């Protein structure tokens, strides 16, 4: 079985799905001849041609808006937004249209599309290239939010996302693109959306982390009796898996690199409080980015939750 990094795994998923289903098309800035700025779409233009691997003008709103029109017509567009910070120009299309055309038309038109975008800090890139604003999208009904945390899950989740009958925002942790290699099978496998994965079993504390924070969390919890959950899909969230774990361990720590206030950790903590309060032995703690714009490279290590901060939170909840 080939050892692939995440870029290669996503590329393989796109290639296999485009070969399997001629409704699947890729569009975005520099995705064609250039193969994408991270080379995620490399070779697709040569294999499937300009009609299915579409280099668009520099036009984020039209990329997502056109994908809505394409999906309604019967295609399965996979749009790339070059960096998550550029998706803000397309929020209107995602929120006002992709997320609600099914509802607005009472089921007559749907938007089975995927918007892929690299996200997260720590790659020494310019401003707006390192955002982690997944919570915005989780707040909007009608759109799913998926975050793979490794090459294997990236392929399986992306195939599921492309086949999903509704719009999916697929957030690719940029820091992990080439950091880890895993065995990634060729051919068909999907990982169900809305299903979390228990990455590491444990009994004393539940730790939730996704994207590049998962790797960091796994390092941090070494030596602790911690159960680590990778949600994989942030919306809809797999509350069943989370609550079962919290009821078992009685403690919960959420790690995310997004700013703390109104981050997804808030929803996770609130849900634990509403549905598992009698099982909790101590406060739910969040290890999150501070409420500041993501700083550039020189300060980013002070911004991102460090293994020390994660361990600090573990030590604190384990006092109860």
């Amino acid at each position: 079985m080939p050892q692939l990094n995440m870029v290669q795994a996503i590329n393989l998923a796109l290639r296999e799905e485009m070969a399997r289903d001629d409704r699947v098309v890729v569009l975005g800035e520099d995705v064609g001849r250039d193969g994408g700025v991270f080379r995620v779409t490399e070779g697709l233009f040569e294999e499937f041609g300009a009609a299915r691997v579409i280099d668009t003008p520099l036009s984020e709103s039209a990329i997502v808006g056109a994908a809505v029109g394409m999906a309604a017509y019967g295609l399965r567009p996979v749009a790339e937004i070059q960096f998550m910070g550029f998706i803000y120009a397309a929020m209107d299309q995602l929120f006002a249209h992709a997320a609600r055309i099914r509802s607005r038309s009472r089921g007559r038109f749907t938007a089975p599309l995927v918007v892929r975008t690299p996200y997260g800090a720590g790659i020494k890139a310019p401003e707006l290239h390192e955002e982690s604003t997944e919570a915005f999208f989780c707040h909007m009904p009608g759109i799913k939010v998926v975050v793979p945390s490794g090459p294997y899950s990236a392929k399986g989740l992306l195939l599921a996302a492309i086949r999903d009958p509704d719009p999916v925002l697929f957030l690719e942790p940029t820091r992990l693109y080439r950091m880890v290699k895993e065995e990634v099978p060729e051919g068909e496998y999907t990982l169900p959306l809305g299903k979390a994965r228990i990455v590491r079993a444990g009994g004393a504390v539940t730790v939730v982390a996704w994207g590049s924070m998962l790797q960091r969390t796994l390092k941090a919890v070494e030596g602790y009796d911690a159960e680590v959950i990778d949600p994989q899909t942030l919306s809809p969230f797999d509350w069943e898996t989370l609550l079962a774990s919290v009821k078992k361990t009685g403690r919960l720590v959420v790690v995310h690199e997004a700013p703390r206030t109104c981050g997804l950790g808030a929803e996770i903590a609130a849900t634990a409080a509403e549905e598992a309060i009698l099982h909790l032995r101590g406060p739910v703690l969040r290890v999150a980015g501070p409420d500041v714009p993501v700083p550039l490279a020189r300060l980013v290590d002070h911004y991102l939750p460090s293994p020390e901060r994660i361990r600090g939170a573990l030590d604190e909840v384990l006092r109860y």
Partner: protein
Amino acid sequence: MPESTLATFSVRRLEIIDPEGNADEALLPDLSGDELRRLYYLLLLTRTFDGRALALQREGRIGTYPSVLGQEAAQVGSAFALAGGEWIFPSFREMGLFFTLGYPIHQLFQYWGGDERGLRAPDGLNIFPVCVSVGTHLPHAAGTALAARIRGERTAVVAYFGDGATSKGDFHEAFNLAGVFRLPVVFICQNNQWAISVPLSAQTASRTLAQKALAYGFDGIQVDGNDLLAVHRATREALEKARSGGGPTFIECLTYRMSDHTTADDASRYRTPEEVAAWRERDPLLRFERFLAKRGLWNEDYAAEMKGKAQGEIDEAVRRFEAIPPPAPGEMYDFVSAELSARQRQQREI
């Protein structure tokens, strides 16, 4: 080196019937007497619906409603050029478009009455639901046209919007995309010269809206939007061009919003009665009646008969609309996603 001129552009304007109903015979579209009378009826139907909707809103039987008064010819004339099979992306002030396409009238009352079920287009009619967010549907039109191209289908796409939309970023992005890929889209702007309180002169410094298309590499034409036949002819030509691979066209229908922006607006706050009165002289319905009369297709008796027929059809639609039981609370969940999440299912049960 001396300066040189790289390119010069001109902007065409088309009008066929003058306000007195005199027609330029050479430009008349090929329409039979029956078709002309059908067009007249559609204008009447739209105006009758409009009056009834305003009355129903005042009585609290429907919600906020945007009147189409004065814009009927731009809508009916363009929609009548559609052959069927096109994909259509409307904005929100296009009742005449919907009626011409045969959209069930009671469903429009239903929608403006606050029941989303009215927006479900009948199967086989590819009209997107009303787009309230101004101009943001234009990229969808471009995307659908691109999808049709990818599939090798000769589907033409038509998008409707107003003058305000031409100031939006999505207007630019969609026009640019359509130009770059030479997409089979007909962009129809009803320039009614007011975006709520903002007049055209404060919306753009451009001499015409039509000329904006030139910057995107395709044709723009201004037509007299109160001249049904000019709108019809321009739309038909643009559709033929789109289907034969000639790319997009932008049609600016210069018209006038005779009424308030919506029932929640009071246009007397920002425009003069004289301006409105001047446009009343150019009423598209009146003009079409004069044109038909000159061709022996219209007289007062015929008008009375048709008005009665339109009233009857609208009466029936209102009856049908008001007989529909309100949606059950759980229906708000019905089309959020193909499958509800566990949490949504739980919320629905409460």
